[in-house]
């Protein structure tokens, strides 16, 4: 699966993309990311799985594209 970072999270991760495997749901993914990047814990962001925002723990399909989305600030 591909993890895409946007906005402020790109700076925190130091990159725009990650490749990860064996993340069956978003809770497990978030746990892993927060361990690797502890500053994520202090950051407000939401997740999109295959370009749809999700709330609560959500299954991640095989080969999904998961995006880490800080609060939007367009316009």
């Amino acid at each position, binding site marked *: 699966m591909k993890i*895409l970072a946007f906005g402020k999270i790109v700076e925190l991760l130091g990159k725009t993309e990650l490749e990860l495997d064996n993340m069956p749901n978003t809770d497990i993914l978030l746990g892993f990311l927060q361990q690797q990047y502890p500053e994520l814990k202090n950051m407000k962001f939401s997740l999109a799985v295959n370009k749809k925002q999700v709330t609560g723990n959500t299954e991640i399909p095989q080969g999904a594209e998961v995006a880490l989305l800080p609060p*939007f600030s367009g316009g």
Partner: protein
Amino acid sequence: MEKKRTPKNIFVEGAISPEKIAKSIANHSSKTDIGGHSIFLGQVRADQKEDGIVKAIEYTAYEDMALQQAYEIREAVFSKYPLSCMHIYHSLGEVKTGEICLFVFTSSKHRKAAIDACEELVERIKKELPIWGKEILDNESSEWKVNT
């Protein structure tokens, strides 16, 4: 016959020029069932921040998702209001203070639908499209824009 709409590109590289806006307005003169147009333009402000004054905003987006979201917003607003036309443009990349970064344009037979739809679009665009603005300050530092 029902109208068929597909996702349209809303992104413009850099600022949106007044000439582009004029051209968009002029394109509607052949649609003689239109009685009112409502336009919203977002312009980059030279806000005073703790570390300096904003001199530009650099926009990035999750483009695929933004276009899909914009399409859904478009469909929802078209089905809610009797509109003749709707156009949405948002900048990507750098837009300097005083320049236009957002152009929302609705047209209808009567003014009320155009005005209400335009306002609703602006609110939804700001809230629902995965776009981020990074404010570039005059001392070359930067901070991430926060929408209120």
